[in-house]
């Protein structure tokens, strides 16, 4: 199977500055990850519009979302962090289930976000 060629990664000076927003969902019932992602996009598009959402450079980390603890990470551009926080606050329900989305904090890398807000530890701390 031939692997699809991807563009070469940009040098750090040309990459957009990103922030990783850690969040936790409090809900009155269970929901599936895809419904959460749809609700987040719905809220972002309603608040920011298509243009604003495009400029916010949003990526919702589906693989990192923990369904049991209901914690996850959203990546956005550094200029739009407050708008993303506001959009998350405006999520009232996922399907029929009432929810409150709380932002746990912001970090510059996924690794730092997981360590600071999800309680993950470095393996080197055990040596």
């Amino acid at each position, binding site marked *: 199977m031939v692997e699809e060629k991807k563009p070469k990664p940009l040098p750090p000076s040309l990459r957009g500055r990103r922030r990783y927003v850690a969040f936790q969902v409090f809900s009155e019932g269970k929901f599936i990850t895809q419904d959460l992602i749809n609700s987040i996009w719905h809220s972002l598009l309603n608040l920011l519009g298509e243009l604003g959402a495009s400029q916010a450079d949003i990526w919702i980390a589906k693989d990192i979302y923990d369904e049991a603890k209901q914690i996850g990470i959203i990546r956005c551009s550094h200029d739009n962090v407050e708008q993303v*926080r506001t959009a998350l606050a405006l999520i009232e329900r996922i399907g029929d289930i009432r929810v409150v989305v709380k932002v746990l904090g912001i970090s510059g890398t996924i690794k730092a976000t997981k360590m600071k807000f999800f309680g993950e530890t470095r393996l080197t701390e055990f040596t």
Partner: protein
Amino acid sequence: MKFYDLFVQSDLSGGESSLQQLVDFAKKLGYSGIAVCDNYQGLEKLEELKNRISELKTDLEVYPSVNIIPTSVNEMKEIVNKVREKVNLVVVSGSDYSVNRAACDDSRIDILMHPELGRPDSGLDEPSLEAATQNNVAIGISFREILFNFRKPRAYILNHISKNLILCDHFRTPFVVCSCAQNVWGMRSPREFVSLVNVLGLDIGKAFAATTSTPQSIVEENKKTLEGNKVTEGVEIE
């Protein structure tokens, strides 16, 4: 940093959540204190609220408050006369311009909540804001109005609130952001309210004041007055 939500309603005002549930959830979200602001339904209901607050098991600061929804200016003044010395906070639900203006003129009122509600304009003008600044009446932003409206109505509400925020900043009128939640699902973390104010046009420092220093100064001043330690503006007994 201490965060406060100065307008939360319990099941005494038709809300869904009990006081204990509201208090436990507020603690989870990071608040240092909340004001339980049930609608005025007579002095007996007010005493019931105060008794229920005193029975709570929590280290969160919980202040009994009253929300007045007046149909006229005289009704508003009558109710304020009855309740001012019995509660920590007196909130007036704005909307009608004459009520908004009368609330701004009355130094016994702590917060004028959502002056823009149901109006084609922001509900406030220069004389109202100057009076509010002079009488230390804070303008309240209701998160519930934003949360439960969508598309065009939400766009109008955000527009009016944004105008009021910029005017409050210009006239140095204090303002607070409250969830106006009627159950735990209407509450939000205070840092999200800071983001909302920032997104609507104010810088982060002033946005923080809306959930920290401004509500804290309101509750502390009223606490001193109710305990008899504050005689009048600038005169305190130690």
